[in-house]
């Protein structure tokens, strides 16, 4: 069950036009940028991308936007915090121009929708968003004395994840805050592709240190991780 792919290009070679792709990473932490670049190089179109944001540490997303590869984005904190920086970003410009459809979720709801898909849960009731624009078009229901919204699972065709270390059968171990969206997106993707800094043999990661069990990961590719200097967005 060797899941190692020889190159980034090979790892993304079958992604078709119209695919939905969850992309992990929280600003500079745990972002599988090399996979995004490989996707930009392939030039497939009409993509739906599901990612936290399209700003700091995730600037590679903008190449997809500039290439007009993206039809829709589902995010929770899509833009730069700074209105000025945002106004200069291709992603925000494309949304303003109506060139890409944008859906925004609360941050907790966003990952819970992905977690639900990976866990075979069709939908769940969360208190987040009641009384806000988030509730538009959604069922609202009382449990006990509190109101909740019904939120549906999101099942992406692919997930791009990042890990500090992988073994050849896809077990992944993450480093500090780079874990973030990676475990739940790995479980959600029908095909999950992991960009990793180190590949070791099975048995070389302590079984209690595996943050993403190999069953969720279909492809592993070694990358030289791009270095970011984190700075407030």
């Amino acid at each position, binding site marked *: 069950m060797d899941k190692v792919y020889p190159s980034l290009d090979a790892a993304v070679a079958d992604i078709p036009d119209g695919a939905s792709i969850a992309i992990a990473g*929280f*600003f*500079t*932490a*745990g972002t599988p940028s090399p996979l995004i670049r490989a996707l930009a190089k392939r030039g497939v179109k009409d993509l739906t991308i599901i990612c936290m*944001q399209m700003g*700091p*540490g995730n600037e590679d997303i903008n190449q997809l936007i500039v290439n007009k590869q993206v039809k829709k984005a589902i995010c*929770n*904190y*899509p*833009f730069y*915090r700074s*209105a000025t920086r*945002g106004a200069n970003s291709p992603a*925000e410009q494309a*949304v*303003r121009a*109506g060139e890409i459809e*944008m859906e*925004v*979720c*609360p*941050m*907790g*709801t966003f*990952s*819970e929708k*992905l*977690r639900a898909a990976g866990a075979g849960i069709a939908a769940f009731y*969360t*208190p*987040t*968003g*009641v*009384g*806000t*624009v*988030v509730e*538009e078009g959604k069922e609202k229901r009382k449990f006990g004395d509190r109101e909740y919204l019904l939120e549906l699972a999101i099942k992406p065709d692919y997930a791009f994840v990042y890990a*500090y270390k992988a073994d050849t059968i896809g077990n992944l171990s*993450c*480093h*500090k*805050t*780079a*874990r*973030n*969206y*990676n*475990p*739940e997106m790995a479980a959600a993707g029908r095909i999950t592709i992991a960009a990793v800094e180190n590949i070791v043999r099975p048995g070389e990661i302590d079984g209690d240190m595996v*943050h993403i069990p190999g069953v969720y990961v279909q492809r592993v590719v070694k990358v030289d991780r791009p*270095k*970011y*200097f*984190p*700075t*407030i*967005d």
Partner: protein
Amino acid sequence: MNVTKKLRGLSRELIALRIANELEDGTYVNLGIGIPTLVSDWIEGRDIVLQAELGMLNTGPLASKDDVEQDLINASCQPVTELPGSCYFSENESFSMIRGGYMDTAVLGALQVSEKGDLAGWNNPGRGLPDNIGNIGGSMDLAVGAKKVIIAMMHVTNDGEYKIVKKCSYPLTAEGVVDLIVTDLSVIEVTPKGLLLREVAPGLTAADVQSVTEPKLIVSPDLKEIQF
């Protein structure tokens, strides 16, 4: 509703200090972006555990340039340090904690707070994005999940408009969630009867604060100057 009067109040740093004093030892706290982040400067050494939304507990002080790790950041994308007892988990687990009621206090910024404790903070229509589009981030989950929500903000906008209002005109983050508002001018508690003015900045009167606050304030019989 342009508020003409300009009042001199606390700096952003002192708003953060006043909030730090409000936090209790032995509690778990999440600090939002902006003034709330500054609260961390005032609690070093205290028995308060900070949570970072991306998946960290016991978040330490900001890292100096030499210590920066791109895999060790806070939810504002600032490099941070570890403390003894720091631990990591997924973003989903982090929001399980938040929605599950494990944050004793969330300190958040705001664009507007209503007299009923409604919070509007995620979407400034002035930015001109399409309707319902903006950076929700963790604000909605924190607002409904935290046991106590403290707002840290300037009392009025840069243009002098009310931020403490009868009814929010900006898109809501959550309804009826705010417990305490700390501004450059005052400390105001949201009570079932309305907004209770508890403290005013040095040199100000209750009338001064009322003049820059849209809803009618209930003045505490124990009204005092903000102290640190």
